[in-house]
């Protein structure tokens, strides 16, 4: 039962905090109140406020809705930065209160600011703010402009709430909320059949994973009697849970991460999700929500560390996804789909890093990837905005026309390809080192090949879009407005410099900070042989060179890989027929099963119902037929009834016995 008194107390406390905060003079805030991590709970509330406001008055605001959203996310961003700075010098802040009391059991709610959470807060609110700004230009003229911003607010709220949750139950609640936000935004163009189908697909496929997460969560609660991360880790450390159970729960939770992060075999929804507006792809399906799976594994990292099998599973799935998605990305012709497969592949990288016990590497790559992939998506959006097509075969020669977008896209491409000096290079190097040192030479090799492929397909994309002759019909190509280019510029800068927070040359500041106070997470920096860095550099440069030769200089005919009719090309182009495979197996089975159920419903259940109604109707008809108005008939019926009663009475006991 909900403890009402407690609820009131909590409500009162929240009111008091808000009240005090409002009454404090501004300079005091600046000195004390503002930069306290205690106020971190305010961060998700700003986007929520934006969502509610736009829900209520968005229709009247029209395009001015953008300012509400931008301002609110800016407030979140400022707070996040303050919290992040604060967290550099102060220990983890954890606040929680009893939410539900059921007998002896206390379910708590609250928020926690540890290193990972603070970093995620920063990433999410930054990308969200930039996307809000960008969308003002991109969505200009859309009829449901304010709805878009409302949805963005809802999603940002959910995502920020997700990353400050101190327990897995709260995480799960926000986890589902981000799923909802993603569903709404993918299906934003609901009048397009593909968008509708993609939204449904995304929702259902992530839901499959969520079931795993839910079961894992319940098992954990059963074993440790708590949803708290700290309690769970304590129990794991004390050996209170059997090894089998740890492995089982870890893998079940990882299934949730697979669904959300688009890992093989639940990856097919992510490329389809590109039906949503491009800023959404940048925010949700590149930088934040899909990284939630990685975040979840990172947040529960001590649990995964306790089971070799679970770690191995994570690493293998991650490594396989990385190369698998990269190979599909080689031949796709839709600019957003190439980026989507690249996202899947990069998420696989992160999983591989985590699975190889490279906690820092995974989180580091999560951060850099958020920046350069958001940049790439926003730049791609700018290109689409300019030429009104997503097919790269209809583009080309845009370098001169998009003077601002093109160099930024190039920066993003260089970063993701792992060219030395840019952020992607450092994080990818970390992952390769982690995979090597983690004792997975095969996975290391896969990752290396995937890195080569990444460089290749990204530059294929670049060359096909920006160089050569214009193959499209668009004549009126224009650069995007400044609301769109400025966020890109900021992300471009971050894509270049973000890597320097954790490098083998200038010190591993990020790693040291992330693992500070948590020796179980591993060292801030894993020392690896120097040749790994060299190899990574060489493969990425080789990929770029090959792409240049084929698509830039055209000295090698592209037919050797993308020749139509070629079997390998066909298989890759059709994404290994995974969708078709699902269609034929799972979907066909479910459809067949539902037909069976429908059969039961129509013929058996409805048959019974029809039988019952038929009998009742028959009785009714009989009754109305008897209603002849003839006294004699009434008398006959009444008498026969009496006779039956009397005979029964006489036979069953009689009146004389």
């Amino acid at each position, binding site marked *: 039962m909900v403890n009402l008194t407690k609820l009131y107390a909590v409500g009162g406390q929240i009111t008091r905090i808000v009240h005090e905060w409002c009454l404090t003079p501004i300079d005091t805030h600046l000195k004390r109140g503002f930069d306290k991590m205690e106020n971190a709970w305010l961060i998700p509330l700003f986007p929520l406020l934006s969502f509610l406001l736009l829900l209520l008055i968005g229709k009247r605001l029209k395009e001015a809705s953008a300012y509400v959203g931008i301002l609110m996310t800016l407030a979140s961003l400022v707070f996040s930065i303050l919290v992040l700075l604060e967290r550099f010098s102060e220990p983890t802040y954890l606040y929680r209160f009893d939410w539900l009391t059921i007998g002896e059991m206390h379910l708590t709610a609250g928020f926690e600011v540890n290193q990972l959470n603070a970093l995620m807060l920063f990433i999410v609110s930054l990308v969200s703010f930039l996307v809000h700004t960008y969308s003002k230009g991109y969505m200009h003229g859309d009829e449901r402009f304010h709805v878009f911003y409302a949805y963005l607010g809802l999603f940002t709220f959910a995502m920020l709430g997700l990353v400050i949750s101190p327990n897995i139950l709260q995480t799960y609640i926000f986890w589902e909320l981000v799923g909802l936000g993603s569903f709404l935004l993918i299906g934003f163009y609901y009048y397009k059949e593909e968008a509708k189908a993609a939204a449904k697909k995304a929702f259902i496929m992530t839901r499959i994973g969520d079931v795993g997460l839910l079961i894992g969560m319940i098992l954990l609660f059963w074993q440790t009697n708590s949803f708290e991360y700290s309690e769970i880790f304590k129990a794991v450390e004390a050996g209170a849970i059997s090894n089998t159970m740890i492995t089982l729960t870890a893998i079940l939770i990882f299934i949730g991460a697979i669904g959300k992060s688009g890992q093989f075999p639940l990856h097919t929804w992510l490329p389809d999700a590109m039906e949503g507006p491009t800023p959404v792809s940048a925010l949700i399906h590149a930088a934040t929500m899909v990284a939630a799976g990685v975040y979840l594994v990172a947040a529960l990292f001590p649990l995964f560390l306790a089971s070799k099998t679970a770690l191995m599973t994570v690493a293998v799935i991650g490594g396989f996804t990385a190369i698998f998605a990269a190979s599909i990305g080689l031949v796709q012709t839709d600019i957003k789909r190439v980026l989507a497969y690249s996202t899947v592949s990069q998420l696989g990288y992160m999983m591989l890093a985590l699975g190889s016990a490279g906690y820092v590497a995974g989180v580091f790559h999560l951060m850099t990837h958020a920046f350069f992939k958001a940049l790439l998506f926003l730049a791609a959006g700018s290109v689409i905005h300019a030429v009104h097509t997503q097919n790269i075969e209809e583009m080309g020669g845009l370098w001169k026309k998009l003077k601002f977008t093109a160099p930024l896209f190039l920066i993003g491409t260089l970063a993701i390809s792992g060219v030395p000096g840019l952020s992607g290079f450092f994080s990818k190097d970390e992952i390769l080192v982690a995979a090597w040192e983690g004792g997975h030479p095969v996975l290391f090799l896969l990752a290396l090949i995937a890195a080569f492929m990444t460089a290749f397909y990204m530059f294929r994309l670049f060359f096909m879009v920006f160089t050569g002759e214009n193959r499209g019909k668009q004549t009126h190509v224009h650069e995007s407005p400044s609301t769109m280019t400025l966020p890109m510029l900021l992300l471009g800068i971050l894509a270049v410099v973000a890597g320097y927070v954790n490098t083998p040359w200038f010190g591993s500041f990020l790693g040291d900070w992330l693992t500070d106070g948590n020796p179980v997470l591993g060292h801030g920096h894993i020392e690896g042989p120097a040749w790994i860095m060299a190899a990574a550099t060489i493969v990425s440069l080789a990929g770029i060179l090959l792409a240049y030769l084929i698509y830039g200089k055209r000295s090698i005919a592209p037919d050797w890989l993308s020749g139509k009719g070629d079997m390998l090309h066909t298989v890759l182009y059709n994404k290994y027929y995974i969708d078709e495979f699902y269609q034929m197996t799972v979907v066909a089975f479910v459809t067949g099963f539902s037909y069976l159920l429908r059969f039961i419903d129509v013929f058996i259940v409805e048959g019974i119902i029809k039988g019952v109604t038929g009998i009742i109707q028959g009785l009714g008809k009989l009754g109305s037929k008897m209603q002849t108005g003839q006294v004699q008939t009434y008398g*006959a019926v009444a008498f026969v009834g009496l*006779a039956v009663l*009397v*005979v029964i009475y*006489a036979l069953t006991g009689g*009146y004389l016995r």
Partner: protein
Amino acid sequence: MTFSGEFFAFMALALVAIIGGVLLLNLNKVVHMVVALIFTFVSIAGIYILLSAEFVAAVQVLIYSGAITIIMLFGIMLTKPYDDSEAKTGKWRKILVFLGVVGFAFAVYLGIYHFDIQQVPTTLHEDNVLQIGKALYTKYIIPFEFVSVLLLAALIGAIILAKREDKEADKQ
């Protein structure tokens, strides 16, 4: 059971009464049915005599065999009974009612069969009419008066019901 004259008289009377009833059910013409019933009514009067109720027997002959039968015959005469239009009630109802009647008779007969009531000598047959008159004008005086009111009401009611309405009479 002794085969006394009383017993034979009862058997004969009962037989005539039942045959009359059966004929009522099976004859085709309405007048014949009513006539068949006269036999029944008269035999019932005989049964009353066997039961030491001479006055009731006399009244039975007067009222039933006389008055009611005559009224019924008049009724038949004044209406048009020989209308051979199709019956609307089916065979099924007859069968059902027959079964119901048989079942009812069976159930009641179960009660009658072992019904052994004691018999004590009575003086009912001595000055039967005197006894009835005494009881009727002393103990049952109020019901008796009520019956006279009832008969009066029935008389007036029957006249009003059976009388042709003026308008109708004008029309015809």
